[in-house]
């Protein structure tokens, strides 16, 4: 089973899809742990680059991730396998909810579980923030930059899409015309 990378990729993303609660960013710590730390399919730098690409592209963040990683592993068939993995748990669970128990959201057990999970999800997203800092070459002299980005999004309410585009365009102009 170890030798079959399609199956391994599919199962890894199935697991990620199944345990991602609260959408896009909640998946980052899981993907980072599985894809970067465990399987070493990407290094930290490429993982960061993939994040900026997925953010700049339209579509479902998690799906963009799975397609990119699948393509890097085994081309189109790899991306199909990984995307199927990330989509399948959602698809099955939502269909079951839609068909059988609409009153699901009122369930007291589910509510208690979510009260415990939500604060943990927030903390889990903070972990790659710290872990990826070094790969992003953040130092005391340039830490103002990610902090400014965070404030622009969280406080000023600017969409991350615009931030990524602005930084990319700025760096393009700098790299093309000013960097000797």
């Amino acid at each position: 089973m170890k030798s079959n990378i399609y199956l391994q990729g599919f199962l890894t993303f199935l697991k990620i899809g199944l345990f991602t609660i609260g959408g896009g960013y909640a998946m980052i710590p899981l993907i980072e742990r599985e894809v970067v730390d465990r399987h070493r399919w990407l290094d930290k730098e490429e993982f960061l680059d993939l994040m900026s690409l997925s953010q700049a592209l339209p579509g479902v963040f998690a799906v963009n991730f799975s397609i990119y990683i699948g393509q890097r592993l085994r081309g189109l068939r790899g991306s199909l396998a990984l995307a199927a993995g990330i989509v399948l748990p959602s698809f099955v669970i939502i269909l079951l909810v839609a068909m059988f128990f609409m009153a699901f959201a009122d369930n007291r057990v589910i509510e208690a579980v979510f009260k415990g999970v939500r604060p943990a999800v927030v903390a889990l997203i903070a972990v790659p923030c710290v872990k990826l800092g070094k790969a992003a070459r953040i130092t005391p002299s340039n830490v103002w930059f990610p902090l400014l980005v965070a404030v622009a999004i969280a406080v000023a309410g600017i969409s991350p899409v615009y931030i990524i585009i602005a930084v990319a365009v700025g760096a393009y102009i700098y790299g093309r015309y000013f960097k000797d």
Partner: protein
Amino acid sequence: MLFLELFYVFFKIGLFGFGGGYAMLSMIQGEVVTAHHWLTTSQFADIVAISQSTPGPIGINSATYAGYVSVVNEGYSPLMGVVGSLVATTAVVLPSFLLVLLVLKVLKHYREHPVTKTMFLALRPAVVGLLLAAVLVLLTKENFSSPAENMWQFCISVFLAVAAFVGTFFFKIHPIRMLLLSAFAGLLLFY
């Protein structure tokens, strides 16, 4: 033809849905509720609640749910509803395939170019800022309660967050195990 229309609408949402799940939800509302009347407003509210409280990306959850309910609302059988889900979900994912594969093809040629390298060097710390923003945005009463509202829940929430951070960062506990532990703690302490 309902299924073709479903495909077209969700392909469009996948293609123009910049900014992740929540941005997509508002597009879905515009198309599925306001423009096509496939869902009622309260059914849409159900989608939002269910997408947030089930695992998986919100974009996929909402496409699957909207695909099913739209078809069943039009008087088709639940089986056709499943087909509707399949159509909507495939359609919402398809633009991602085309775009990501295209970007990778272009990047292959330019990855080592000095200008591309400069761009990614600048983008990496920005992405860390993005993640930090996600953390800040999630520090809400909905996720943590508040001392005024429910002191007990607030303290437990803060404790669980700190424990989850310390556990995964310092003790390298797998995030999935951490989520299961906090789910169990939630069940014990909040039920």
